[in-house]
């Protein structure tokens, strides 16, 4: 398939599993790779070399990319810091702000459903004496704005709330959160790894002070991300990586020119195609969801349906354990909130935070649709899941009990 601007879009190969895990990562867009290629061998210069043409051409490419990254969120290019990815951006934003302002303020507010790198950054800061409030979420996965208002104190330096949850795809009310933070003089950081390039974001309209961005979630390369750092009013950070003072001293190290160019190109494509892509993904997602619920009973959607990115579904298939289900659909690549798929043997903390009961959390699948997902793949995947769920329910003692009208909760189970 050839796109309007002449780039080619790769199709999924027939002998490989159907990829439906776009919240985990995305393949590189061929157009992004094309943009990156010259910067590996020919235009290999160090963008920080000021004394010759190799450096100048690399610097020009990096600055053009910075502008592309900024444009998508209505930011100034000087407010974009390149990092190795959203994990580093989250670490830098949270620890950097907390450490810079620690003499005046020592409190952070975040959500229990944040990505592990946000939660873990906060945990580490607690050891440095920072107080952290981990706010619960509502049943639909969204923050309770009243609870947030109550949680902010005069000592609060930062509110860190993700734009889109990586497991359940729900979109937090960024504009309302931003307005609340600005009114209270609190910095607002948002992990936008799952939102950037997927939904419209505007740092001014949403009053976002710090925003984490990932390359590989938007058909860009792995190993690159960015942190938006507001200039007016200026946000100050203590750096995590020290060295030559690149990126305005906030992130030292030679910039990886091809990766920066890739992130920039991915952002530019997203800016052009986001609206039409969102519409297409919503159509695919709704088609898939409808097909599933028409043929299977007791399938539950986790997270709000309306405030949700178009490329995500998170479904619990009652009475069928998630890892077993994934083994039954080997030709589909999806992920599960089941304990058996995690190292900790605990079911998804995000689903648990929504109040999803453990037995249902074990039965969840996250299905992610993206740029290269086709209608045929969606139909095929839905049919495979339906067949596998039916087969596994036929061999599930819990399904049998439910059919006999036995309340599973009435049984004394021995925890093991």
């Amino acid at each position, binding site marked *: 398939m050839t796109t309007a601007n002449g780039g080619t879009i790769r199709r999924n190969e027939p002998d490989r599993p159907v990829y439906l895990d776009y919240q985990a990562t995305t393949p590189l867009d061929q157009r992004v790779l094309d943009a990156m290629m010259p910067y590996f061998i020919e235009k290999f210069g160090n963008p920080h070399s000021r004394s010759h043409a190799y450096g100048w051409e690399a610097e020009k490419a990096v600055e053009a990319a910075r502008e592309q990254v900024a444009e998508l969120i209505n930011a100034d290019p000087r407010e974009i810091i390149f990092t190795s990815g959203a994990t580093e951006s989250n670490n830098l934003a949270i620890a950097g702000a907390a450490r810079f302002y620690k003499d005046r303020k020592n409190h952070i507010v975040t959500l229990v459903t944040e990505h592990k790198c946000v939660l873990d950054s906060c945990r580490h800061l607690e050891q440095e004496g920072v107080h952290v409030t981990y706010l619960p979420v509502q049943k639909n996965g969204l923050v309770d704005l009243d609870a947030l208002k109550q949680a902010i104190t005069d000592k609060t330096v930062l509110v860190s709330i993700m734009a889109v949850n990586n497991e359940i795809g729900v979109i937090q009310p960024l504009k309302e959160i931003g307005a609340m933070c600005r009114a209270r003089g609190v910095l607002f950081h948002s992990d936008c790894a799952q939102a950037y390039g997927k939904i419209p974001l505007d740092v001014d309209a949403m009053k976002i002070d710090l925003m984490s961005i990932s390359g590989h979630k938007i058909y860009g390369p792995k190993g690159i991300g960015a942190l938006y750092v507001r200039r007016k009013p200026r946000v100050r950070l203590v750096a995590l990586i020290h060295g030559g003072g690149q990126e305005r001293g906030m992130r030292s190290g030679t910039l990886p020119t091809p990766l920066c160019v890739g992130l920039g190109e991915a952002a530019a494509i997203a800016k052009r195609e986001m609206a039409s892509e969102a519409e297409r993904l919503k159509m695919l997602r709704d088609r898939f969801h409808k097909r599933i619920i028409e043929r299977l009973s007791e399938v539950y959607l986790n997270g709000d349906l309306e405030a949700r990115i178009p490329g995500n579904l998170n479904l619990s298939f009652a009475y069928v354990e998630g890892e077993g289900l994934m*083994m039954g659909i080997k030709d589909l690549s999806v992920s599960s909130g*089941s304990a058996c798929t995690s190292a900790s043997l605990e079911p998804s903390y995000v689903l648990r935070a929504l109040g999803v009961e453990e*037995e249902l959390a074990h039965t969840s699948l996250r299905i992610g649709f993206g740029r290269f997902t086709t209608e045929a793949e969606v139909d095929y995947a839905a049919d495979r899941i339906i067949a596998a769920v039916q087969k596994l329910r036929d061999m*599930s003692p819990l399904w049998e009990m439910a059919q006999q009208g036995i309340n599973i909760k009435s049984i004394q189970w021995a925890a*093991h």
Partner: protein
Amino acid sequence: MAYSEKLIDHFEHPRNVGALDKNDPSVGTGLVGAPACGDVMKLQIHVGPDGVIKDAKFKTFGCGSAIASSSLVTEWVKGKSLDEAASIRNTQIAQHLALPPVKIHCSVLAEDAIKAAVADYRSKQNQEKSAAE
């Protein structure tokens, strides 16, 4: 996770899926595990007058290893006496299916299911006897 061929075979072609009449005095039923923990096994044995297990059926809610472990033990217990069946160890199950370390609990559950089924059968038989006396 990479699983052994034997495990995948049991998962994809599970042996002896189904149910026996749990009210039949010659049937023993073992129900172990918990939904909140992500695995529940129901193992049933049908015992002949000679004390030998004639048939076994299972239903399992769980991961691939849990399903394969229960499928395997239905094969193993058939033709065995109650004592022989109850002496099957989880390590044998784990070894046969080459279970990865994080999945050992699935084999423990399968061993427990056999013991629970045998115990259920025996308690039913005792009740029958005392009812007859």
